[in-house]
């Protein structure tokens, strides 16, 4: 970590939970763990790709970084010098003995975007902009291109009023448009051109970081290539950093220096682009690669085919969150009682006959059935192929007592992100060995 470049953005254990509200009084009945402890850094002039399927929390991270959503927990630091980053890492390792107290205080008061307010935050706005996926929805239909692109300049009073239009034209020219497009409405443009307008707007304040939320997903391949080229050129000219959010692996392979793969609110794999594509460590990354038609020879291979239920993000599983769909799961993946219930989709009558569940923790439970027959049936089902072999092995104890079934698993800690041989981080029990 001893390079001389600044770290533009550093996410530290970022959590974002959304409350689930119910009823007239809007009582909070649960929390959706959209982002659950995510950490990564973006260096100056670097592109970090955030990859995952819908609902994995990648868009939420983009919104947190751009300040649209307050964090539930964790910190996002902006523009850290190498010394500051070292100090911060040091501080996190040895909380008790603070060496550079003044430096930590300075970092917390000036760089922590979840803590700064007022003018400092206003300043951060200038340095972090965003480009959205849907250019129909991200450009106001009633504003002219001139208004849209010059608006950030006006808000931040970057230049005098008579300079606004020349500056706007300059920006439009940088994204491959021209002054003839100044006084037109967004709906008069094609999708690719509208995305160029969005990019021009994001560039207006000369930011250091741009969050790109699926910027090319709505575009055709030939136009996508134009936009990707443009983004690359702009990055080179201006030394921009990108947080590139997408589900498209071939786009991210082309664009990103580093990749962060997310699943169910957690990072499952992170590392350099080449490493991850050459030698993916996590089974989920492998599955994503295998399922992408432009990367894999056989999209219908077994590796690409993920079966099994996706856990409810309101009750994220302990242990590895991917184990329910993992083709290479093992006994030590952190199986829990909920997994049995998730796996009972072929036996809904059995689920219906569950009267109560007494669950002191995730790994032990007492299920009470309406009849003792159902209880015995459950035990039988657990012995069949409907339950993955590794999960069956992980069951420490299953015993039937009348209408009750006591089940217990070996408790497992949350799987940590660990360094694998090729230098990338991966959250998998297989990599831990």
């Amino acid at each position, binding site marked *: 970590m001893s390079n001389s470049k600044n770290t533009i953005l550093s996410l530290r254990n970022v959590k974002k939970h959304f409350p689930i509200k119910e009823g007239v009084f*809007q009582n909070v009945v649960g929390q959706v763990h959209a982002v659950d402890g995510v950490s990564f850094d973006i260096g100056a002039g670097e592109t970090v790709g955030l990859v995952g399927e819908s609902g994995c929390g990648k868009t939420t991270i983009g919104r947190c970084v*751009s300040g649209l959503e307050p964090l539930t927990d964790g910190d996002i630091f902006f523009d850290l010098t190498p010394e500051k980053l070292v100090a911060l890492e040091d501080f996190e390792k040895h909380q008790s003995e603070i060496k550079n107290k003044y430096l930590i205080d300075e970092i917390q008061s000036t760089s922590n975007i979840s803590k700064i307010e007022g003018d400092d935050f206003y300043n951060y706005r*200038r340095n972090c902009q*965003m480009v959205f996926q849907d250019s129909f*929805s991200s450009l106001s*239909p009633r504003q*002219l291109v001139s208004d849209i692109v010059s608006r950030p300049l006006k808000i931040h009073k970057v230049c005098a009023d008579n300079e606004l239009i020349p500056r706007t034209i300059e920006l439009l020219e940088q994204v491959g448009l021209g002054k003839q497009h100044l*006084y*037109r409405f967004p709906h008069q443009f094609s999708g690719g051109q509208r995305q160029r307008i969005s990019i021009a707007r994001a560039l207006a304040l000369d930011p250091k970081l741009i969050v790109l939320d699926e910027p090319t997903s709505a575009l055709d391949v030939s136009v996508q290539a134009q936009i990707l080229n443009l983004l690359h050129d702009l990055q080179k000219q201006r030394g921009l950093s990108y947080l590139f959010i997408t589900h498209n692996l071939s786009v991210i392979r082309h664009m990103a220096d580093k990749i962060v793969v997310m699943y169910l609110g957690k990072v499952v794999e992170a590392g350099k682009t080449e490493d991850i594509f050459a030698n993916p460590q996590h089974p989920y990354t492998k599955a994503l690669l295998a399922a992408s038609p432009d990367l894999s020879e056989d999209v219908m291979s077994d590796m690409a085919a993920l079966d099994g239920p996706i856990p409810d993000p309101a009750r994220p599983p302990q242990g590895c969150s991917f184990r329910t769909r993992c083709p290479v799961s093992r006994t030590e993946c952190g199986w829990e009682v909920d997994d049995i219930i998730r796996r009972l989709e072929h036996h809904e009558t059995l689920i219906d006959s569950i009267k109560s569940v007494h669950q002191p923790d995730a790994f032990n439970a007492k299920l009470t059935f309406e009849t003792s027959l159902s209880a015995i049936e459950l035990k039988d089902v657990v012995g069949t192929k409907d339950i993955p072999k590794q999960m069956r092995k992980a069951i420490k104890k299953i015993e039937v007592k009348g209408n009750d079934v006591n089940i217990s698993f070996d408790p497992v800690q949350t799987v940590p992100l660990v360094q694998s041989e090729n230098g990338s981080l991966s959250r998998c029990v297989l990599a831990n060995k």
Partner: protein
Amino acid sequence: MKKNAQNAGIDEVNFYDSAFNVRLKRNLEILSNVLANPTTVLGLIIVILMLAMAIFAPVITEPNTPDPYQMPRDWKAARSAPLTPGHILGTTNRGGDVFYGVVWGARTSLKLSILVVSLTVVLGVIIGSVAGIVGGKVDEILMRIVDVFLSIPELIFALAIAAILGPSFTNIILALVIVFWVKYARIMRAQVIRIKQREYVDAAKIMGASKLQIYLKDILPNSFSPVMVQATLDMGNIVLVGATLSFIGLSEAGIAEWGVLVSEGQAGISAGRWWASTFPGLMVFLWALAFNLVGDGLRDVLDPRTETKR
């Protein structure tokens, strides 16, 4: 080839300072779309005629002194049939000139509808915006109040309020404002909630625009068209409800107002004196019809589904 020529044309024109022209062109385009519908044009013609009548009332008939909004009484010529010299549409039982009532009634109606609509729109837009933007409990409370108002039929509600306040023209305005604002609050809230989730609002937040700026520049302009359509429709409806209230006697007697005139002439209908009620009644009908036609035409053009995409 044609297309290239067009593009070249755009390049040649000096487009500095032409934002105004572009906006004007777009508004004219919308207008021409509105005018493409013959029934809308018919409605618009009637509206313009009515407005002309209201504006030029003092020119068309000599204003009554001291208060031109009071009906002039010609007791000698009471109960004259239409086409009587001096009373082209006849007179009422009490010698009021029906033609004068019809002309000055347009003014009263215009006054009524403009006052009520502008007050209700302002009130409804403010309350609806607050509910939509603040959300949560505030929204919940405001919307329950709106529900209470909406659960009572418009006319009966207005009638009750006007009756409590006592018969006067001002009280009719007040009663109508109290009844009609809820619709706008509802429409505005729904629109604000819809628009506030648009990504251009997020984009404005990221730029650092203040909440007020976002409201005024992004949310309000993009959520206003349904309010405008409803306002146009209500320009007609309010006169209809207002006339009903006047007809029942909740307005001041003797005022030049269509509802009052219909009520005054009603007694004569059985005796064959149809004119005193028919002409003002026809005016109420035409007024309401015209604004409804225009409102429907506007709705077709300003429909939010057709405006964002080509």
